[in-house]
């Protein structure tokens, strides 16, 4: 003869089991992938991150400096070489 507590007990066991597996009661069978921090919709978009980074433009500016230096450093050395030879060599 089935106890009058059998049904509630079975339900309790089911709830506890699902909870132990990481599921919440009432969501079994609808569980999707756990969102990673990187894909969280709560994080700002990349564009928003760039505009929010107060140093975002520094690398571009340093690249401009590097580009200018690349066209001048070797040239100046060449100028030294040219100017270092004697009068009639110039």
């Amino acid at each position, binding site marked *: 003869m089935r106890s009058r507590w059998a049904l509630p007990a079975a339900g309790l066991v089911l709830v506890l089991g699902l909870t132990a597996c990481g599921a919440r009661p009432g969501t079994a069978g609808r569980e999707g992938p756990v969102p990673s921090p990187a894909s969280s919709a709560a994080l700002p978009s990349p564009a928003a991150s760039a505009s929010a980074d107060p140093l975002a433009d520094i690398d571009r500016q340093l690249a401009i400096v590097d580009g200018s230096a690349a066209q*001048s450093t070797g040239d100046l050395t060449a100028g030294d070489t040219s100017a270092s030879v004697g009068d009639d060599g110039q």
Partner: protein
Amino acid sequence: MKPSLAASILATTVTAALLVGSCSAALAAEPAGSAPSAPATTAPRTLSSVQALGAGATAARISALDKAIPRVTANAYLSATDKDRVLGTLNGDRAAMVTLAAKIAADTDLTVAKADYHSIFTGYRVFAVAIPQSLYAAAASGLQDAAIPALLSAQATLVAAISGPLASKDTPAIDATMADLASQIRSAQQSVSGVSVFALSVTPEQFNSNHEILAATRASVKTAAAAAKKARADVASVKAALT
């Protein structure tokens, strides 16, 4: 050959070493009556020797100009006006070297050949004026029109960050680096000011009268370039400290 000249040339680069022949020959080809500078030096004063030296000297300049002209053409910082001026000088000198090479090769009189040979140097100063002035002007333009504005922009970005959202990360070391950044930018601005205009104004005749006429310009460009390099390092250092 003058001993000091020989020592100087031998101590320089391979490029300069290639010029030793023409330098020694140039001195050897001085007009008759000039005192011999070294007893061991043989002085080729024949027409064929002057012609050979002329061929070497013009070829060396044509080769250097052929390297400089594409570099100037591709330079992204020279203004169109300055680039036209520089290329006009370099292409003009190249054409003159070709003409002189042919004339010297065809000369039949030693005195005329010697005069033509000396005009390779005194008339054009390819290595002393034409190429260096183009390099200094290009470097100065790059600093003035690109590097320094970029450094000023980076400086403003850092100042805004330090006084705003990243204020909590500010340190005395960062403040010191920012102060140096400002100093280096000022140094670069002051050093490069007027360099391009002056460099491009120098003529072979001016160099013939004053062999140091471009020395201060060269020093100024080097100072400005070094300051810009230090300022760049300051910007990177502060950015790393704030990140």
